[in-house]
């Protein structure tokens, strides 16, 4: 009898992301970040647990309401408070980099590198 405590959850996570509401939320976030649906799914499956994936739609809606200015353009509230893919300090750092004069495109690229 072997006790398997850690199972591969990727197929079950994908099943959750295929739900109607979850799929809409994933597509809208992928559109924000300029990714394809599959790339977005891959990041989410690697970085979030199953319960966050179930709750992804209300969380992203709450982040949409909270986001404004530079944070909105970089989707920082979505990645930090809503999904926890980045820590709050990392989010602050990216915002301050834009405020220091770096272009939004290059900071977005840096965010993608951290996520990938």
């Amino acid at each position, binding site marked *: *009898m072997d*006790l*398997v405590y850690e*199972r591969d959850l990727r197929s*079950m996570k994908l*099943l959750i992301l295929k739900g109607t509401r979850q799929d809409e939320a994933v597509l809208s976030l992928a559109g924000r970040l300029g990714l394809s649906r599959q790339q977005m799914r891959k990041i989410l499956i690697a970085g979030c647990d199953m319960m966050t994936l179930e709750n992804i739609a209300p969380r992203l809606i709450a982040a949409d309401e909270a986001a404004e200015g530079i944070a909105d353009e970089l989707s920082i509230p979505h990645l930090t408070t809503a999904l926890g893919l980045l820590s709050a300090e990392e989010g602050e750092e990216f915002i301050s980099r834009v405020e220091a004069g770096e272009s939004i495109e290059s900071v977005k690229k840096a965010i993608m590198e951290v996520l990938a």
Partner: protein
Amino acid sequence: MSLLQSIKNSVRKRSIHVCYVNTGSCNGCDIEILACLSPRYDIEQYGIYVHNNPREADVILVTGGMSPQWIDKLPDLFDRVPEPKAVVTIGNCPISGCVFNRPGCVIDPPVSKYIPVTAAVPGCPPRPTEIINAILSAADELFKNHEEKEAKK
């Protein structure tokens, strides 16, 4: 029947430990099992104790139609239950999958494919009295003269 066996029989009759395992039910059957605990039905007056711990259980109550996570875990859990043991399934789901067994679903009934099932209580969900009745009658038959039956094998 030896004296030891008759003592064991009478003790076992008044001490049945139950563990319930939800393998993908809708909660209806689990709630009816919980209702058995209430003083109205008072499952403990028959010597049935709900501990929900497979290591000290005699009877496992299975509700639900085998969702993907349980397919390897339920036989594992069954192995950990000490002998003598019995499995009683509650509700329609472990028998046939009930309304969930349709193309596109992720469950894989029946439960008897994975572990040996002693008794089944159909119903969606069955009443608490039926559940108590099933546990009592299945446990009585199965645990009586257990050691002598084992020796004959």
